[in-house]
Every structure is written in C-alpha cells, then in structure tokens.
C-alpha cells in the first residue's frame, strides 16, 4: 500500500476518489439547497404558511421603526425586494444595508422573530486574521522541519539539524 510501486497511479487514484466524493457531496448539497430555497420563497411570499417553523435566512436591512426592522430576504443570488418582511428582535445599529444571517420564525402576524443573528463583524475579521497567522506559522514551522530532497519526485525529507 505504501510501497514505491505504481506511485503515480496511487496518487491519481486518491485524487479521483476525492473528486468523486466531492461530486457526491455537491449533488446532495444542491438538492438540499433547492429545497431550502423553495421553503424560503414560500415563507417570504406567504409567511402565514410557515408560522413557527424555524428558518435560517439572510437579509438586507431597510427601514427601522422602534421595535421592528424591514428586511429583504436573499433567495439564491437575489434579494426578494418585492416581498420585504418585518423583523423583530434584531440587535445592533439601526442602519439600512446591513447583511445579517438570521435564525427565527414567522409569527401569526407575519413578523419574523429573531432567535439568533450573525453577521460579518470585527470578531469574524479577527478570526480570519488569527487563522492567517496560524497558517503562516505552520508553513514556517513545517519549512524548518522538512526540506525538499534533490530527487526528481521531490519527496520531503526531515532536516538533519532539527
């Protein structure tokens, strides 16, 4: 299994298996997304059909009142601008154009009540920066421990001084 025979074939085989697994996952995910999209469209166009049903939606905020915000729901690549929804329980600054992921449900008055919200804020940005720092450190660390051998197949070899 780990021998030197048929190495290109083994590597190519691994690659093909990965592509097949990815394709399978893509097909499954696509079907799941289509169902979710259909549900979101139905719920946004007639919220009373989805009362108390948990939904995850992405919205773009519009006008705000004292207790409610208006928002356009994203379905696929576009926002359903012709069917804005009323949202309760949204926190943060009351400005238009915020893109927020929401978990919640519609009540009997067709108001979407937020249970949880998420948006790209400074925490997410910090996480990306910390992750990039981690990636850089790993590459540096790995380069300190291993080097490329002079052989044409370029296997990695451990550095002798470490």
């Amino acid at each position: 299994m780990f021998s030197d025979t048929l190495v290109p074939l083994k590597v190519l085989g691994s690659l093909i298996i990965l592509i097949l697994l990815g394709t399978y996952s893509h097909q499954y995910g696509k079907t799941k997304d289509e169902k979710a999209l259909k549900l979101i469209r139905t719920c946004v166009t007639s919220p009373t059909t989805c009362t108390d049903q948990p939904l995850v939606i992405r919205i773009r905020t519009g006008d705000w009142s004292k207790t409610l915000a208006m928002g356009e729901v994203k379905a696929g690549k576009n926002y359903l601008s012709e069917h804005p929804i009323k949202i309760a329980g949204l926190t943060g600054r009351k400005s238009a154009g915020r893109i927020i992921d929401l978990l919640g449900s519609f009540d009997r008055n067709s108001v979407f009540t937020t249970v949880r919200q998420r948006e790209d804020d400074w925490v997410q940005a910090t996480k990306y920066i910390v992750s990039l720092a981690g990636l850089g450190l790993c590459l540096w660390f790995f380069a300190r421990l291993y080097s490329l051998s002079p052989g044409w197949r370029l296997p990695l070899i451990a550095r002798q001084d470490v």
Partner: protein
Amino acid sequence: MPDLLTHAASGYLAGRCFYSDHRVGLVVFGSILPDLMTRVPGIILQRFLELPVAHFFAAFHTPTSLAVSCYGFSFLFAKPQRRLSFILMFSGSLLHFVLDLMQKQFYEPIYMPWFPLSLQAVQWSWFHIHASLLVAPILLIAVLWLWRKANETSNR
C-alpha cells in the same frame, strides 16, 4: 471552525505528547489540512468568486476524504517514513475534525463524520463557534514555551 491557530497549536501540543522531533510537524500539518482542503478554496471560490462549490469542498472535511488525502500526501515522503507520515497526518486531521464537532453551529450541524455512508451531520455543541479566539493566545504561549524548551534541549 475554531481558527487555524487553535487547530495548529492543538496539533502541536498533541504531537509533543509523543514526539519532540520533526514528526510533530506531520501532526501539525494534519491538524490544519481539513481547512486547507475546504476553507481556503471555499473562501476564494465561493466567497470572492461566488462559484457554488461549498458542498463540493465540504466533502474534503470528512474523515474518509481526509484519510484519502493523507494517503496521497504520504507519497511526498520517502518509503521508510510513508506509513508513519500517513498515521500522524491523519491523526492530526482527526483531532481537527473532533474539535470542529465540539462547536455549536449557527443552527444545524454541518460536519458529516460518516460520509459517504451517511450524510447525517453531527454537532456536540460544547462551545461557541468563536470561543477558540479566547483560547488561541494561551495555546500560542504554550506552544512557544514548548518550542523554546525543545530548542534549548537540542542545542545542549
């Protein structure tokens, strides 16, 4: 996912329980491999180029795909180290996967431990998705201290 620094540091600390030489590097590489295979192409292709590839790359963040990937990567090493390289990289990957399972996602679980046999996703909801940012500095200090200690020992 916890941030990559937390994953790498946890891989280093786990690796140091068994080795203090170059083999630790394999566990560290394994511990960042799932995100290298999934998040990096996902962020570039899905977030910036808006290509619908998230589900395709999500498959690479599963134990089966990680085993296949580690097997492929093991051929970067010479034959005598190949088997051990595979085991250490895969151990690091599994550590990463288990840490990801511990998170509480926004709503539904997203990680599929039994893929492709089952598409059932699992989460244990032990900590918040951003909680790793609080632990990362502590882990980094622990890694730097151990790294310095290992260097001092090898210089003697």
